[in-house]
């Protein structure tokens, strides 16, 4: 076990360096000089050269890259070109907790609702209840957030606000009420996915021989389902938890943007338009590390749950 973790952590280092190199090279070769973008038409050679020097952009690309790697080793992701006197560390540190909180809540809710919904369907396969449930879950899974958000907002405005009922804030961050709409939107997709995954995996497990044996032994159905079947049926669900969290955190830029939430996903997108390379690289490294780490955690959880993997 320790060896596996060690190997994975080592590969994490390798993955991160490959990613920094790729983002660096792509950024270096992409059209759009960050300083020139800031200056626009105010072409002032003195200012241009001064700023290039300040940000170390006047050095050859390999020196720039080595400087970046050197910073990375010291956990310093560099300084934003765009936000005055702000380090990428600070920027990510302020956005990450917000995104984690939001993504974590959404994931927790999807699990709490999605797993029971999946079991509910699996126990009455092809009944009208199963079909209705499947349809609902498929809808939730398929509806893009930029469609769901205006629908929720319209409901909030026309049904609640205009009738003088207590309504939810349309956007913002800081109070518990600000959570509701974004969490609902983020939960919807993951919930649909987890419910469908639980259903199919549960159905598969319920057809296994050992379930038949358990039934034959005369065990109570409740015990069969929750002790014997569920434990194995959840394996695929556990596989997706890690990556889901990573994506909920870093990939929720639409939700963060539309609800004006100061998270990390949106920062990444905005920094691309502004050629704020240190921020782009910082968020990419963060996302990559999260995915690798989450996959590692998934594997560990897997070995704990499935003795066959441990043996192998």
């Amino acid at each position, binding site marked *: 076990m320790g060896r596996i973790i060690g190997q994975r952590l080592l590969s994490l280092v390798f993955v991160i360096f490959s990613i920094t190199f790729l983002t660096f090279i792509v950024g270096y070769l*992409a*059209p*759009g*000089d960050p300083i*020139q*973008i*800031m*200056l*626009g*038409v*105010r*072409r*002032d050679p*003195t*200012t241009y050269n*001064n*700023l290039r*020097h*300040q940000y170390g952009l006047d050095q050859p690309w390999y020196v720039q890259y080595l400087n970046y790697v050197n910073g990375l080793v010291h956990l310093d992701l560099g300084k934003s070109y*765009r*936000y*005055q*006197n702000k380090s990428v560390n600070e920027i990510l540190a*302020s*956005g990450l907790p917000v995104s984690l909180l939001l993504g974590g809540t959404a994931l927790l809710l999807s699990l709490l609702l999605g797993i029971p919904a999946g079991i509910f369907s699996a126990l009455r396969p092809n009944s009208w209840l199963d079909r209705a449930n499947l349809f609902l879950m498929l809808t939730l899974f398929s509806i893009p957030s930029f469609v769901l958000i205006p629908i929720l*907002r319209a409901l*909030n*405005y026309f049904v609640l*606000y205009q009738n003088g009922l207590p*309504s939810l*804030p*349309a*956007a*913002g*961050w*800081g109070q518990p009420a600000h959570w509701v709409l974004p969490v609902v939107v983020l939960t919807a997709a993951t919930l649909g996915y987890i419910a469908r995954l639980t259903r199919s995996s549960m159905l598969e497990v319920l057809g296994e021989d050992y379930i038949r044996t358990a039934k034959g032994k005369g065990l109570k159905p409740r015990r069969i389902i929750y002790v014997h079947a569920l434990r194995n049926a959840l394996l695929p669900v556990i596989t997706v938890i890690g990556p889901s969290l990573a994506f909920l955190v870093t990939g929720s830029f639409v939700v963060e*943007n*539309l*609800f*004006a939430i*100061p998270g990390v996903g*949106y*920062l990444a997108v*905005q920094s691309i*338009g*502004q*050629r704020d390379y240190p921020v782009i690289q910082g968020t990419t490294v963060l996302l990559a590390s999260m995915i690798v780490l989450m996959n590692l955690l998934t594997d560990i959880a897997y070995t704990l749950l499935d003795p066959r993997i441990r043996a192998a």
Partner: protein
Amino acid sequence: MRRSFPVLGSLFLLGFLLMACATPPGTQLVPQTVVVPQTVAVQQTVVVPQTVVVRETAQPAATPPPAPVGNQVLIWSVDGVNELPGLDPANPQNAQSVLAINLIFGGLVKLDGQLNVVPDGAESWTTSQDGKTYTFKIRPGLKFADGTPVTAQTFADSINRALQPATASYGAAFQLQHVVGARDVADGKATAASGIKVVDDQTLQITTDDTVPYFLAQLTYPVTFAVPLHLIQAQGDKWTDKAFGTGPYRVKEWVHNQKLVLEPNPNYWAGQPSVSEIQLPFIQDSETAYQLYRTGGLDIMGSQQNPVPSARVPEVNSSPDFHQVAAFAVRFIGFNNKKAPFDNLNVRRAFAMSVDKVTLAERVLNGAAGPTDRILPPGFPGSQYPIKGLSFDPQAAKDELAKAGYGADNPFPQVTLTYGVEGDNERVATFLQQQWNDNLGVRVNLQPLELGTFSENLNTTFLTPENGLQFYLSIWGADYPDPQNFVTLQLLSNSPNNNGHWENPEFDALGKQADTFTGSAEERFKLYNQAEQLAVDGVGWLPLFVPRFSVLIKPYVSGVVPTGQYLVIPDFTALRGRPQP
């Protein structure tokens, strides 16, 4: 020419504050909103709402108006960003920063609602005979929000700091290029510009290298604003988290990536601001701002750069909250004059005369723009003198193309129009493509580029025209209210902003004469007018339209005036926000 509207450093023209300050007891100021229709040269009438302050003499026994109730809040969304790039006046990076900077800091002079340069930190000034030396009298008793006195030395130090390389300002060296010695400071060869002299505590002298009639207007841009150097020394890079200056407000709290909260500057020279708290939430998406506005979360939304979403305009344009203003900006087509086929005047004229701008503005853009045939936007200083534009005339356009030697035996080559992907550009470019096809029989390819890439391509066009774009859709917005900012800054043959390298010796001669003219503003504007006419005839630009932008202001808010550049607060003591329980 990416969208740089940095600034008409203007704003918040507290112009009238002055008046309020000088008001003797027994006189009452009554703000009224009047609508002043102005006919401008662009065959269109723009309605400019302006707040004027009417003096009324009350009964002798009456006391001055009571200090306004302090318990009011104004929530004003800063649209289009999820964080301010900074609050350092030395480095105002975008219009959103400038909005906040102008609430917190002040300079020597500022602009009033009519775009006149009026006193701010300097109570008066004189200009030398040769027009190159400005002597400012600093307002006696001027203080920073923390009570520290502000003297001529403070201003000199602030300006020098903005220029020093360590400050890493994007705009200072450019904006102050005419100050004697500024270049040396920017190059790191000196720490103080030789042209900035502190005569005594109350007297500051600034010398320019040439006669620069628009110099005072340039001083309204934040880079010359007074900054609290003692705070910067004590707090280092993080000083802006608690920033204050000589403006009406100071930072109470900057919740990064969320909002800026301001409280009144107790030492503001023009009197205690009436609204006790201004909140500036950062909202990237205009639709989100609209949703917040209509559920009572905002008092003001929209700006020139990020107006009310056009899809929402029909549902709000009849409400009292709705205001629409023509921007001090012009969207235009620029041509690469160093490369065939647009090095040919007749070709450029043919393209200019084959575009139906009225249909473009009214149908394609649903009235969110006004058609224009000239370089200065309507209402801008100098635009009072008319220009004869190249009007829409498909037949004349075809004749021009024939004159250029193109016809059945020599078909016009395929050309590519490049534009940055933002706002309505896609629709505009498609319409233009159609127009040139229908009216001129010319096939135009469209090349949409992401904004940063577009900007890079413009730069290439400027530096190496032979490798540059053929023609491009661009926009220019005012930095300061002087025709120089549009006419000569854009089109003088040696201007760093002349991306397309349009050249006309006669234009250059007139333009340079106007740029250094020491006589009356009227005479100078007439020189610009002649130059502008040459630029229009020679198609230095193909001006398309002046964007109109929409903002929403709750009816209980008063004292905020939408202008072509920004929302302006002429008098902070007369501002009213949302009443607090």
